[in-house]
């Protein structure tokens, strides 16, 4: 071949290959756009929850509502949220007596009022939707993740069921759903909050002990609440960035 023909073919070849590569890249970019939810921009929200221990009466309505809303398995029981009853002797705060009969689905059985200054209170627990979540960090395939609006979710189509996240969560809020063999947990009722509703547990709570909050909304009552109450998160030493804030949490709560 003479020089000009060779040069032409080299140039044309490069041109064709680059165009092909560019179009493949473009398809890749376009394919990744999730369908926009009408009226909902994820980056305008940063969801969390406030749980007021001073208001929780241990009725278990939140546990029932969550099970009904999210089709959570009852036999054998799995819980996306549950309530624990603590009996704490102030002289021995490291050893509270804790019970959670069937996750408090049917409330709590009566107990004799403990004497000796022992205090009793109820602590509802759920996924803390951590900002620096250990479960997200350990997932090998990216099946659990934090959404742009701060909700930790599980992608059931990608989960392998390896259970690494179940081990990693310091709050014990994850479980394996025996029907799908994938990890499952509280989704903060993502399907409800993105439509302007509140979570099922907050809807059912009769005393307002549980309240959904949007930390990015300047009008949300959470900002006033956090300024006027002493709030705490579970296991702060784990530095998980938990977004469920407890008012009135006792030091004995693990």
């Amino acid at each position: 071949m003479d020089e000009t023909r060779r040069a032409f073919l080299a140039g044309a070849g490069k041109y064709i290959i680059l165009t092909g590569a560019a179009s493949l890249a473009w398809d890749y970019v376009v394919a990744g756009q999730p369908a926009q939810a009408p009226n909902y921009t994820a980056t305008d929200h940063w969801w969390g929850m406030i749980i007021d221990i001073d208001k929780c009466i241990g009725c278990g309505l939140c546990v029932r509502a969550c099970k009904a809303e999210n089709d959570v398995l009852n036999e054998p029981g799995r819980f996306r949220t549950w309530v624990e009853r603590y009996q704490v002797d102030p002289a021995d705060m490291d050893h509270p007596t804790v019970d959670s009969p069937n996750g408090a689905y049917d409330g709590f059985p009566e107990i004799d009022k403990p004497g000796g200054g022992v205090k009793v209170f109820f602590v509802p627990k759920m996924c803390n939707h951590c900002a620096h979540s250990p479960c997200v960090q350990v997932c090998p395939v990216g099946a659990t993740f934090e959404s742009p609006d701060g909700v930790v979710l599980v992608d059931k189509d990608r989960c392998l069921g390896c259970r690494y996240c179940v081990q990693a969560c310091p709050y014990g809020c994850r479980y394996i759903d025996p029907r799908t063999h994938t990890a499952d947990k509280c989704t903060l009722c993502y399907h409800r909050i993105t439509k302007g509703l509140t979570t099922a547990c907050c809807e059912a709570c009769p005393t307002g002990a549980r309240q959904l909050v949007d930390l990015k909304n300047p009008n949300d009552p959470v900002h006033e609440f956090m300024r006027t109450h002493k709030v705490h998160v579970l296991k702060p030493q784990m530095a998980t960035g938990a977004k469920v804030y407890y008012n009135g949490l006792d030091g004995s709560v693990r």
Partner: protein
Amino acid sequence: MGERSRPYAHVLRVAGLFLFGFAVFLVVRWALVPADFGRLGFYRAGALDSARAVKVRYAGEATCVDCHEEPAQLRKGQGHERVRCEACHGPLGRHADGDFETDKPRALNPRLFCWPCHAELAGRPALIPQMDPKDHAVGESCIECHKPHRPKAESQ
């Protein structure tokens, strides 16, 4: 090929094998990794849509009140004002959508409905009225004295 063998032939063979292996890896990766993975973070962006697509079971008080204004008005001014409809009546999302067959408002058996909140229980904060089921109106139905939407009894 000349009679002199190329001195770097072994290097080129290994490099070729490596490139072939890399090409196989790229093909497998293209086949297994979903197209929208990595777009928003280390996850499949379509998972957000699946999370949003779950069916809503609890309609929410605002939806109930759209059709049933009277009970909401009755509740004003007394303790049950802050108890939302479906806390007692159960999930009624499908009822709100017009399907009156699937979600029926629960028939409220007072014994099963009132005590879980109002029975005296160790550790229960005093912010709602509580009484001992063993000595309060034993054998009577709660609703004889307490209407559910306006629970203060006449004697109170």
